[in-house]
């Protein structure tokens, strides 16, 4: 019994980080109508940024978010307004291929810069855990990562619900022309959405760096996980993202080291085939 509970707890904790990975992807998908194939690389860039800054000035990696989040937000805005808005005028297929090109460029640029060595952001609470009962415990790190993810997602959904800017982002996602009739600059809104997606990638990157070892080439698998979250949850749906994260987290934990990834991939393909609009889409 304790064993089953342990698996469920681990799965849920893992699901938090998956949801966070997917939330940036789902924003781009739902609002900009763009599949950003470079999302995984953005996450890994966030991992490197947090790891390196933390090492350089000797602070807890979590504190590096103060720098990485605004920085990635600005880079995202610049990327969208400088490049992707332009390509999207040509068509959606070219835009997809441009993000694919970006992902390839970024992965190899990371390789050139940092070599293929494994990296990890070290934290003092790496191995501590809270014992609940015999055979049942919660890793402190996992809990912290889960809380970071949850807080990020809650703040983001409040922002989208309650602020003028957030409403304008949702309005743009519903109907770009009608939004522009309300005074919304659609291209600027796209840039902001990309900025936010990048900012969430920075946070997800930090979580990845604290939890697992990563390489310059790790982006691909995180992209697929993010995509899986979007597919299972339904594009543009934040509650869907949370549930999908949990489903994938559980699948991963149940499958274990050998088959976790495989089960997750198969699950995604099945969802794509059976219910491509996702669980939480109307």
């Amino acid at each position, binding site marked *: 019994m304790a064993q089953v509970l342990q698996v469920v707890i681990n799965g849920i904790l893992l699901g938090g980080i998956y949801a966070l990975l997917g939330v940036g992807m789902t924003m781009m998908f739902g609002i900009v109508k763009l599949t950003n194939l470079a999302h995984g690389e953005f996450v890994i860039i966030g991992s490197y940024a947090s790891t390196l800054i933390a090492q350089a000035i000797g602070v807890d990696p979590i504190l590096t978010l103060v720098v990485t989040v605004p920085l990635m937000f600005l880079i995202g805005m610049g990327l969208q307004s400088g490049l992707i808005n332009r390509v999207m005028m040509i068509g959606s297929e070219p835009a997809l291929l441009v993000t694919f090109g970006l992902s390839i460029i970024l992965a190899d640029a990371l390789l050139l810069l940092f070599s293929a060595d494994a990296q990890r952001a070290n934290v003092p609470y790496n191995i501590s855990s809270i014992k609940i009962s015999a055979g049942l415990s919660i890793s402190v790190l996992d809990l912290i990562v889960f809380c970071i993810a949850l807080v990020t997602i809650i703040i983001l959904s409040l922002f989208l619900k309650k602020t003028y800017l957030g409403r304008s982002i*949702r309005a743009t996602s519903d109907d770009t*022309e009608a*939004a522009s009739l309300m*005074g919304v*600059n659609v291209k600027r809104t796209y840039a902001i959405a990309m900025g936010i997606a990048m900012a969430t990638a920075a946070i997800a990157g930090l979580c990845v760096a604290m939890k697992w070892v990563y390489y310059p080439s790790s982006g691909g698998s995180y992209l697929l996980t993010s995509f899986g979250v979007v597919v299972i949850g339904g594009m543009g749906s934040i509650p869907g993202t949370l549930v999908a994260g949990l489903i994938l987290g559980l699948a991963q934990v149940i499958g274990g080291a050998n088959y976790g990834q495989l089960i997750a991939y198969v699950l995604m393909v099945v969802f794509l085939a059976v219910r491509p609009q996702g669980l939480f889409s*109307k």
Partner: protein
Amino acid sequence: MSEPMLKVEGVQAKYGDFIAVSSATLDVPEKQIVSLIGSNGAGKSTLMDTIAGLHKPSAGKIYFKGEDITGLPAEKIVTKGLALVPQGSRCFVRMTVEDNLIMGSFPKFARKKCAESLERVYELFPVLKEKRNDLSGSLSGGQRQMVAVGRALMTNPEMILFDEISLGLAPTIIKDIYARIKEINKQGTTIVLVEQDTHRAIKTAELVHVMLKGQVVLSGAPKDLGEDEIKKAYFGI
């Protein structure tokens, strides 16, 4: 005669090589209700989209309150006090009624008056207050049109363009919405009504423009023109 509030001079609008509006010239005097009528495909909607900035004109000039607004993007034009209620309401279907309305006060100057405008809209359309927490996608066609009208009002416009607001609605609902539009006009807003129904347009408007094949072919007060002449222009006979 004083300068008209909206002046459209020889506007041409194209989709690729297809010319939807070849040369449209019309005036809209301040505080009036003006109708633009024409059969399906005459270019009325394209002209409205072009005035509101959703579509760039390929020739001609558009002046609003004496200011040249030709080719400005929609998000700029709405800040000048010119709003469009687009064809088919175009509500933000995944947002609540109230969020839809609040979106209307997105322009900076409108935000200060948000609460006040919201009150005004709810007074005009009490049913929207009842349904304010419902998703606008769940509303009936007529209610969606109300949301679209309310949303346009929230931008504090001095002029509103209504693009075929009666399309697909039941006659009683159309009557109701037209009554509201007259009320909005009485409160000081200039109105442009795009219509296919000549009869209704003539009854409501003080000035009528008739469009045929991308051009404005007839303009004048309905009482001066008479229904027959308008109908002839409408069908191009």
